[in-house]
């Protein structure tokens, strides 16, 4: 998980996959900084 440590992360979540806020939580615990997070809908 150290690959995200100290990194700035742009998150595009999928409404029917993993949404942005859920990825954001993972990024935070992995030491990354979420600079942008959004969830998109393709259906």
């Amino acid at each position, binding site marked *: 998980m150290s690959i995200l440590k100290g990194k700035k992360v742009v998150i595009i979540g*999928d409404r*029917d996959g993993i949404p942005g806020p*859920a990825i954001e939580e993972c990024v935070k615990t992995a030491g990354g900084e979420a600079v942008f997070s959004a969830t998109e*809908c393709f259906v």
Partner: protein
Amino acid sequence: MNSVIKGASYVLVHTPDMVVENGSTQTTERIVNPESDYLKQLPKHIRSYEQALGYLPNQTYIGNCTPDELAKVEQPWYDKPCEGKRFGKFGEIMPQEEFYLLMQVCDVFDLMYLEKSFVAAVKPTFEKHPLITPEIVARVHEGVEQEQIEAFVKEEHAEPILHGGKLVGYVKRAHDVDVNLSAHVILENLVSKASSVLSLLHVVHNTGIDKGDVDYVIDCCEEACGDMNQRGGGNFAKAAAEIAGLTGASGCDVRGFCAGPSHAMITAASLVKAGTYRNVIVTAGGCTAKLGMNGKDHVKKDMPVLEDMVGGFSVLVSQNDGISPEINNGICGRHAVGTGSSPQAVISSLVLEPLQKAGLKITDIDRYAVEMQNPDITKPAGAGDVPLANYKMIAALAVKNGDLERAGLNAFVQEHGMAGWAPTQGHIPSGVPYIGFCCEDILAGRVKKAMIIGKGSLFLGRMTNLFDGVSFIIQENSHESEEGGVSEGQVKSLIAKAMRDFALSLGAAGTEESR
């Protein structure tokens, strides 16, 4: 006593020219990249009406093929044409030209005009439609000259109406400066209203209800109607009920993105169970903006653009008749503000928690209706098989909860799930496409309990980052009608009262003795 579902209708409209003219993917592309290859290639990938009729998921939507029959056909489905029938037991697939007349009928403010010879050519067929009444036909205008159409499109910001690539009409703006009454918004709203009207006509026909007996209509589409002072003022419901001839009905709009239909169904069931209204119709028309939404990927993969259908549906919820499938208001799932957004948290709140509260296991529900998007549309676009992903998550929760052995995961998906068949029209595929088949499955004894799940992407409105969703159960009728008999709930209530009285009498006797 629980309310019941008396019947449902499902309609599609084939709108090939609207894909090109009105789909947001295409309108955006024309602004940012007007010379793009995509726009040049697109017309070659548009299906004919006959091709759209002969597409198995479309025939499934209107009831000519069951979800189980569809699942037996190997994907993809678009290259396996089937027998194309216009009408099915749930509704129909209306061609674009007739739908334009229905849109004009739905315009009560003289904002939509069709060309004279176009009207003359289509009206005779329109008049013969089995559900189009003389009152509706009387609303068809004679039409205008071609020069007027061209002038309004060129000079007055009117939205063009095309058929076969030819300009046959226009929708004009309803106000000079109010963007909420722009030609674009009015056209989108007329499409939604007209497809809702078509669904209403079919549900009245399918259920045999007298139009005057409908008390209330709830619209659950994803459009908004209003002006600059009340952008989402609303009441598509009452507007559609007027054209459909439901003269005794009032109504309102319920919104929740794709979860709207499930919210509306729970509202309708509660209104009827409470005795507020006897007969409530939940209805929704379709969405022009979503036409060709994934068109770029379809064209890239040399497929037909499958998002060429505007959808609609209606469900009649009525007082318990002792026969029809019931909506169980006691088992409703809801994604709460504090639930969280991970897929596990979402499905737990919608499936696991309400079932646990009711003392049921995940495996006690025979069929789950989730987001029933057609995978033929979503897989080539990289969005995967949406229903399958939902079923896997429900199965995984069942394993985690000890309701299911891990080895039974795939079998659970097969037995309790379905392949998606609905067009990607947002609210249209969200749980509700199964209600028609569900009623048949329950009445035939194939299914005892089914769960309908609606999920909504609230974050798209930029007012919250929250997700949303609600679920409800449709089950066998307890065979007690509203008019007579005693329900299971009433029996439980009577026993509970007797026990309380007995306990009180014991307590009273004890008190007497201790004195």
